[in-house]
């Protein structure tokens, strides 16, 4: 079936157009527990919730914070809010592995900024955290049960939802700290979904079986909310979802779900392309996998939300080609909440993955210049493309001095599109800082080559050492290539030295086993030599730490800002200043 996204005035109209009997959402808990609802049943449950919200006095334009576990009920509540013309926002639900103090301060900040009319929580929301939900005089707390019963569809007075009215607020990446609420209109979301569906060939797939999306992604993140909830809702696709916590505990379940439901599309951040192969039972041998799992249904697994690393894609491909993962299925995209979602997408129809280029590392560091070289050349470094621009999306590459750079030069990525946000909710000053003359300043560094965008890293993470531009990821990759260092567990930081007037590189890295620390001096020397040999710069200080020392994000990857803060605290002799926040 083909769905023409542009025919809809708003997201609710798109949901209403779906055939009632079509499966929409499967919530997968484990092999014994999964529940599928059709579009018809989803609509019914959303209307029951909408009626309950209306009885709470909800009106057009009111904000609703949804603090619920990732369940059907949370998703129907989100849609119910939109049915009334009110603005829902998902926030992260507390869980056993969050840092309680960070979570509390994030919750206070975000709920205060939204000035919500209603904060929706589930029956099991921990009472001790309620004091940190900012509830002003106008805000009411609404506890919802998981069961919406079997009541028939209530007649709710229809709100007149204008295309240019705000549909919802999605928060920029990260689960804690001062997240920025991105307000998005129905029209912007629908335009984005139309472009995305076309780029992914969702319409073109109509000759074969319909697409089925797999997701473990949190709904408070743009990948989870837009690609894995709004896209299937508007394009009338089936989505199979498990909670991020279940995935992080048992990543092998991802293989099981894709196999069982013959999923065709999925999105993941770069770290997951390494995390999944390393945490699945490869030790039990390829035969075990071949008998149990089959990934041949996948037609696009898209690396998104972090700079794409070729090595991570290769690791995933190599691990799972034995269980049917086809060549050319791994793809890439550059996306952000501020643009609703994707700015670029690699071509899913050409039968091979995104382009990869090898560049002269020295020219990149010294002059921010892109000079392609052969793969084996000395000092060559590789980048994987994030693909081509979606229709009506434009990028500019801006120099440090504010000039527009041509193809082949690295600078800040600026974006203009027909799905760009109009501002951060209730934060006009912050909005004015990042949207200038209609262009969104992303804070990401990248370059364009042969009409494709390559993302290099975050501008604020760039290390400028003696006039040379260094990307921390490059240093970390070299450090992790040492056999004593735990892969993925190194962080390179720039520490300003006032005596010499420049930043110096400090590397913190975890060793594989604590016993290795007995050889600290030798390992430090070898790592230092590797970095000098690889990129020709000296590391001021290498700090080897025992396993599990680095601060990790909730997803388990090394957190640059968290590690920075811990180092400032535990190694005061380094005179490192604590940093404020981080984009995940």
């Amino acid at each position, binding site marked *: 079936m083909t769905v023409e996204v542009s025919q809809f005035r708003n997201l609710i109209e798109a949901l209403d157009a779906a055939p009632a009997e079509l499966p929409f959402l499967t919530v997968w808990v*484990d092999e014994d527990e999964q529940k599928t609802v059709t579009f018809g049943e989803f609509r019914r449950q959303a209307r029951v919730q909408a009626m309950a919200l209306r009885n709470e006095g909800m009106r057009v334009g009111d904000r609703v914070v949804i603090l619920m576990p990732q369940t059907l009920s949370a998703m129907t509540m989100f849609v119910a809010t939109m049915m009334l013309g009110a603005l829902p926002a998902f926030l992260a639900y507390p*869980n056993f*592995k969050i840092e309680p103090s960070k979570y509390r301060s994030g919750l206070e900040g975000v709920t205060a900024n939204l000035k919500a009319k209603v904060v929706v929580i589930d029956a099991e929301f*921990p009472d*001790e955290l309620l004091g940190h939900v900012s509830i002003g005089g106008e805000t009411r707390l609404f506890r919802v049960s998981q069961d919406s019963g079997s009541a028939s569809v209530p007649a709710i007075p229809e709100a007149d939802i204008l295309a240019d009215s705000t549909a919802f607020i999605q928060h920029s990446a990260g689960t804690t700290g001062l997240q920025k609420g991105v307000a998005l209109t129905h029209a912007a979301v629908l335009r984005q979904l139309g472009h995305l569906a076309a780029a992914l060939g969702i319409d073109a797939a109509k000759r074969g079986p319909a697409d089925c999306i797999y997701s473990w992604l949190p709904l408070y993140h743009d990948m989870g909310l837009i690609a894995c909830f709004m896209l299937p809702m508007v394009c009338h696709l089936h989505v199979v979802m498990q909670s991020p*916590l279940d995935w992080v505990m048992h990543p092998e379940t991802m293989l099981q779900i894709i196999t069982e439901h013959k999923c065709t599309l999925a999105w993941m951040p770069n770290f997951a392309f390494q995390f999944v192969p390393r945490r699945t039972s490869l030790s039990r041998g390829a035969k075990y996998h071949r008998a149990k799992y089959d990934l041949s249904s996948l037609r696009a697994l898209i690396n998104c939300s972090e700079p794409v690393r070729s090595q991570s894609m290769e690791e995933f491909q190599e691990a799972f080609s034995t269980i049917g993962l086809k060549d050319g299925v791994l793809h890439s995209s550059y996306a952000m909440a501020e643009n609703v979602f994707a700015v670029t997408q690699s071509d899913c129809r050409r039968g091979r993955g995104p382009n990869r280029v090898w560049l002269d590392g020295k020219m990149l560091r010294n002059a921010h210049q892109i000079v392609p070289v052969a793969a084996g050349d000395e000092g060559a470094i590789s980048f994987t493309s994030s693909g081509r621009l979606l229709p009506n999306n434009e990028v500019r590459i801006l120099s440090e001095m504010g000039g527009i750079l041509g193809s082949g030069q690295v600078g800040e990525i600026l974006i203009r599109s027909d799905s760009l946000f109009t501002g951060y909710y209730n934060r006009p000053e912050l909005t004015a800082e990042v949207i200038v003359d209609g262009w969104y300043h992303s804070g990401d560094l990248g370059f364009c080559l042969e009409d494709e965008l390559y993302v290099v890293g975050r501008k604020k993470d760039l290390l400028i050492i003696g006039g040379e531009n260094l990307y921390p990821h490059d240093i970390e990759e070299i450090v992790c290539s040492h056999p004593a260092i735990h892969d993925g567990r190194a962080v390179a930081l720039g520490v300003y030295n006032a005596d010499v007037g420049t930043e110096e590189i400090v590397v913190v890295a975890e060793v594989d086993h604590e016993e290795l620390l007995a050889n600290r001096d030798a390992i430090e020397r070898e790592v230092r030599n590797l970095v000098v040999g690889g990129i020709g710069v000296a590391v001021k200080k290498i700090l080897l730490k025992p396993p599990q020392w680095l601060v990790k994000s909730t997803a388990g990857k090394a957190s640059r800002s968290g590690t920075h803060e811990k180092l400032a605290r535990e190694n005061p002799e380094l005179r490192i200043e604590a940093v404020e926040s981080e984009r995940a």
Partner: protein
Amino acid sequence: MTVDEQQMIEHIQQLIRKPGLVLDENTALVSSGLVDSMALVDLLLKLEDVTHMRIPPGKVQPKDMNTVALMLATAQRVGKVRK
């Protein structure tokens, strides 16, 4: 102390690497800072192994993991027998 509690304590001692530190089933681990939040994923996996149960992580809060005794009580409360 039960066998399950003893196994959990031995695992935690290896994890936090503080020689000489004596732990029992009622030692506060999370609220005291002995165990950080990311190590709790590892502890929950160990708890599944020790109890032979599948523990839905969405039903576990930091306070449920504060002591070994609470961990085992949580496994009994929310765990499902593993196939």
